[in-house]
C-alpha cells in the first residue's frame, strides 16, 4: 500500500475500475495509487496489462466506470476540470510523437499555448528555453516531416512542457525510438523533470528505464501487483 500523505499527493487514484466493450473487457480492476509531488514513477508490465489506460484515466482522457481520480487536488471526472488540468497541470507524451507533419516544430509546440490563449511572446521565450534544453533549438523552423525520430519525440516532449505542467504522463515515450535515441530522450526526460521538480508517471515495459525511476509499480491484468523503490 502507499504510505504518502494524500494531502501532498499529485495523483490520487482510488479503487478505479475501467472496462471496454460494454463491460466485456475489464482493463482496470480496482486500481489504487498515490503519487506524491516530485516523484518519478514507472508503471511496468506486459502489453495489455492496463498501463496506458491508467495514464488515460489519470489525465481524464478516459472516463472511469467507478472510483475516484484526483490530480493536483482536482477531481478529473468533470469536463471543465479535465480541460483545466490538461491546460495547466498535465503534460502528456505518447509513444508516437503525434506532431502535425506539415507544420514546423515551433508551430506544433505552440498548440498548447493557443488552447489557453496565452501570450505569444512568453510562449516563444519558453519554447526557446525548452528547445535549447532538449537540443532542438536549431530545428524549430523546420517541418516535422523533415526531422528524425528522436527530434520528433523531443519535440513532443517540449510540447508537453509548454504550459509548465506539474505532472507529466508518458506512455512508452521511447518505445518508437532506436537504441541510441531511446537512452538520449529518456535521459533528457528525467533531467527536465528532476530539474523542475515535476512529477512523472511513465508507462514502460523496459525494466532498465524503470529502474532509473524513484518507484516502479508492477501491473498485471488490470491490477497493481507490487512496487519497488529506486
Amino acid at each position, binding site marked *: 500500500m502507499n504510505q504518502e500523505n494524500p494531502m501532498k499527493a499529485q495523483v490520487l487514484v482510488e479503487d478505479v475500475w475501467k472496462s471496454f466493450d460494454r463491460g466485456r473487457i475489464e482493463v482496470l480492476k480496482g486500481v489504487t495509487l498515490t503519487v506524491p509531488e516530485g516523484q518519478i514513477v514507472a508503471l511496468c508490465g506486459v502489453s495489455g496489462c492496463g498501463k496506458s489506460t491508467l495514464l*488515460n484515466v489519470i489525465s481524464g*482522457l478516459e472516463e472511469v466506470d467507478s472510483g475516484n481520480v484526483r490530480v493536483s487536488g482536482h477531481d478529473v471526472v468533470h469536463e471543465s476540470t479535465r480541460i483545466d488540468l*490538461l491546460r495547466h497541470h498535465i503534460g502528456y507524451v505518447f509513444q508516437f510523437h*503525434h506532431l502535425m507533419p506539415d507544420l514546423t516544430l515551433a508551430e506544433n509546440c505552440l*498548440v498548447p499555448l*493557443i488552447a489557453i490563449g496565452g501570450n505569444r511572446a512568453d510562449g516563444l521565450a519558453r519554447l526557446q528555453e525548452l528547445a535549447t534544453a532538449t537540443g532542438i533549438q536549431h530545428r524549430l523552423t523546420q517541418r516535422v516531416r523533415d526531422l528524425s525520430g528522436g527530434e520528433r519525440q523531443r519535440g513532443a516532449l517540449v510540447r508537453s512542457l509548454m504550459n509548465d505542467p506539474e505532472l507529466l504522463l508518458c506512455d512508452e515515450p521511447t518505445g518508437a525510438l532506436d537504441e541510441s535515441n531511446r537512452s538520449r530522450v529518456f535521459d533528457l526526460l528525467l533531467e527536465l523533470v528532476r530539474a523542475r521538480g515535476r512529477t512523472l508517471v511513465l508507462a514502460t515495459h523496459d525494466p532498465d528505464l524503470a529502474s532509473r525511476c524513484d518507484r516502479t509499480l508492477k501491473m498485471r491484468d488490470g491490477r497493481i501487483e507490487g512496487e519497488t523503490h529506486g
Partner: protein
Amino acid sequence: MIFTNLRRHRVRTAIGATGIALGVATMLSVVGLLGGAVKMFERILRSDSQVVVFEKNVSDLFFSNVPVEVVVELESQPFVKEAQPVLFTIITAPDRPVVTCFGIRAADGRLKKGEWLQGGAADFQDDGEGVILGERAADFLHAQAGGRIELGHGTYPVAGVVRMENGFENGGVFMPLLACQKAFHKEGVCSVITVALAQGHESSEVKAWMNQHHERFTALENEEFSRSYSQFKIMKTTAWVVGGCAFLLGGLSVTNTMILSVFGRIKELAIARVCGFSRGQLARMIFGESLLVSAIGTVAGWGLSSGGLYLLAMIPQLQGYVEPRIGWQEVVGAMALAAITALVGALYPAWYAANLKPAEALRFE
C-alpha cells in the same frame, strides 16, 4: 489555427471553396441577368415617368385595358406634367412569329432617345400608319425606311429605323397608337398610362385621384410596380430558387470537404484535446474553417459572375438584351446564403470533432 489548417490542406480548401464559388457565381449570374432584364422592362414602361397606371387584377400588362380618355383627364390635373398611353402587343411578321409592338403617340419621349438611322421623328405621326422599326427588328425583318412591311393581318409603311439602347425596344416595332388599336381591335384603350409629375407634386396625388375617379385602375410608382408586378416576382423568385439550388450543391461540397477534413485528422484533433482544447474550441475551429472556405468561395464566385456577365454583355447578339446588374442586395444575399451554407455544412463535422474521445481517437488506425 484556422488559417494554418486551411493552408496545410490547400487542395481540399480549393475544392470546398470552388463548390461555394460556383454556387455564388450561378446565383449572382442568374439573379443579375434577370435583375437586368427586369430593369430593362421597367425602363420600357417608365420612359421619363414616375407613375404607371394600369388595370387592376390583370395577370399581365398585355391584358390591361385602360381607356385613353383617362389620359386626357390626367393631363388636365395640375399635378400631371405629361401622360402617355402605351399599348403593348405581340405581333407576327413573316418568319418571325413574335415581335414586340409598342403602340405609342408621336409625343412619347422614348423615340426621341433613340439614334435615328433612317427617317426622323417627324415621319412618325399619330394619324398615320407608318411604323418605326428598332435597328435589330429592321435587320431581322429585312426592312428599311420607304418600304412596306407585313405585320399581323396588315401591311404598313416603314417610316424610319431607330437604334434603341434597350434590347426589347431595339428588336421591336413602334406603331402609331391609333393604328395599333385598330390592328388589335383595341380601339380606345391602351395597356398602361405613364405619368410624369409636374414639378413639386407627389405621386400620392395621382394615386388619390385615380382611387377617387377610376377605381378599376391602379396607379403605382415605378418602384412599387416593380415590386408588385407578378411577372417580375416570378422571375425574381425563379432566380433565387435556381441560385438556392446551386448553393445547396455548394453546401454539400463544403460538408463533404469538412467531413473529410475532420476524418482525415482525427488524431490531430485528439492531440488538440490533449493539449487543452475544449469541445467548444474545436467546434469553433471547424466552423471557422468552413466559414473561411465559404468566404473565399464567395469572393471567387462574385468575381466569376461579374466577369462572366461582363463578357456576356460584350456579345453583339445579346447587346441591349442583357444588362448584367449585380446590386449590393444580391451580393449581401449571396454572402448570407454562403455563410449559412458554411455553418450548416459544418454542423456535423463540428459536432463529430467536439465529441471525439481523445483516447479512442489516438488508438484509431
